[in-house]
């Protein structure tokens, strides 16, 4: 986290649902705090029921928090005035089906306070940006799931927000669409926009996010920079080719997680053995392809974290 005041701050968020008086209370969110630095992409991860969407809804005033404070660019975002500089795309966005894409964007632009004179230009620009140019006059009832998703992103950006909150933006998109959304998020970050992204797609999060907060059972299970979370302390990953049928004798005792594909070997070694291993590969006539800090996949990290914190959640 940088020293600048956060673009988004959630402090002590809690949401308790109680269907009726006397009914047992159910915590959807127990205690969540997070901060998103300006101009970064922050991922919000967690299994189903972890409290991601409820946290976002509390942040945007869609759900009344039982406790906690929520600010966007320093303003209370549970109040309408605090959301003026924010754009939000809900999970699986839906639109009034009788409208065209242009009419829908016009409606949302008016609601967001975009001056009337700017709406046509901005609408055309955004439709092109999300890959819907030529569809402006198409009835939304004829739009596919993916096209509605793209329009959802466009409506979130209609007011040129400084903060964008996206709930599962790549859901329902084909691989090309997912790539487009990733590129769009990166372009937003390059333009100084802060992005808070809730997603199940770990590869998407790993690719674009600077920091993540992982929720489990309504609690923060982990948070921090992706590299800090995924790098395995003390170990280095080695990729080498043409080593023959076996690793050199000097390497074998220190190598772990060994995998072979064709003539390529991938394994990890302790950091203090790297010099010795590189020399051994040279002496054995092998070709070194890469030497990088060993890094977990986000999938593996996520699975291990959830298994580790499951007990804490159950004991609450």
């Amino acid at each position, binding site marked *: 986290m940088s020293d600048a005041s956060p673009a988004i701050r959630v402090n002590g968020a809690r949401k308790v649902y109680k269907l009726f008086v006397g009914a047992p209370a159910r915590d959807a969110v127990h205690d969540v705090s997070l901060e998103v630095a300006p101009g970064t992409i922050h991922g919000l991860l967690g299994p189903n029921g972890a409290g991601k969407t409820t946290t976002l809804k509390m942040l945007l005033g869609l759900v009344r928090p039982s406790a906690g404070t929520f600010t966007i660019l320093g303003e209370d975002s549970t109040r309408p005035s605090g959301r003026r500089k924010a754009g*939000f795309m809900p999970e699986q966005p839906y639109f009034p089906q009788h409208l065209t894409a242009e009419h829908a964007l016009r409606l949302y632009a008016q609601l967001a306070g975009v001056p009337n004179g700017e709406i046509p230009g901005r609408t055309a620009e955004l439709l092109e940006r999300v890959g819907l140019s030529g569809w402006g006059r198409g009835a939304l009832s004829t739009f596919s799931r993916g096209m509605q998703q793209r329009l959802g992103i466009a409506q979130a950006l209609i007011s040129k927000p400084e903060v964008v909150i996206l709930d599962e933006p790549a859901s329902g998109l084909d691989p090309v669409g997912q790539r487009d959304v990733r590129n769009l998020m990166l372009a937003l970050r390059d333009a100084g926009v802060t992005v808070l992204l809730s997603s199940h797609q770990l590869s998407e999060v790993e690719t674009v996010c600077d920091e993540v907060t992982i929720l489990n059972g309504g609690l923060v299970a982990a948070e921090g920079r992706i590299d800090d979370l995924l790098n395995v302390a003390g170990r280095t990953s080695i990729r080498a080719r043409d080593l023959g049928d076996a690793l050199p004798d000097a390497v074998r005792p220190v190598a772990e997680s060994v995998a072979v594909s064709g003539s390529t070997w991938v394994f990890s070694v302790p950091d203090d053995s790297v010099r010795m291993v590189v020399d051994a590969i040279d002496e054995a006539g092998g070709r070194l392809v890469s030497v990088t800090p060993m890094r977990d996949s986000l999938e593996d990290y996520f699975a291990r974290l959830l298994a580790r914190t499951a007990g804490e959640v159950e004991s609450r």
Partner: protein
Amino acid sequence: MMSRVWPIAAGVIADSIRRKIVYVLLVFAALLALAIPALPSYGLGVESAVFREVAMALAYLTVLVIALSLAANRVPSEVERRTVYNVVGKAVARWEYIVGTWLGIFLVAGGSLAAFTVVEIAVGYLTYGEVMWQLWHGAVAIWLEMGVLSAVAVAVSSITGPVVVVTATLSVLFLGHGRSALLGGEGALALAPFVPSLEAFNVVNPVAHGSGVPPLYMLSMFAVFAGLSGIALAVGAVLFGRRDL
């Protein structure tokens, strides 16, 4: 404020234009209006008065169905389909959404009434050779009452579904028009002051049998409309504001 309320109202109007029910009801009502002169109960010398009375009843029922069908479904369906997220997730207050929705329904009801009243007056002129301008007074009274009932319906719909909305709104309608009959009996008199009366909008006599509604009474109807609608919308805004979406 209106910069956000008006687009929401315009959305309701656009949606209602798409709905076939509005056209079907208006055409059906217009056909019935054409048939009014054929009613068997017509007596010599009172034809035009009876025409105006029946025409007003027809207009009332038609616009009531239109207003209720819009008001009962709009908010619940927007919440269920989550289209409301794209609206209140922006810098739009919940009360602006409620007022905008109501305003759209109110204007659709007004447009429908205006169209229907033009048909009624045309039929009246062609049948009796008389321009029944008093029907406009009746249309305004019906419109204002529909405004109140729409406000009640939107308020109830902010927390519940269409069936409850229709039931509650019709209950208010019957109670509002039958206050003296329902609560006027011995032992129930004390409740009457708590039940808002819709009788202020009952202008059948001056429209059908008199010379129209006096301007001062018309103004007072607007005051009643503003008060009752305002109370209903305020309740709706509070209820919707407290609701988790």
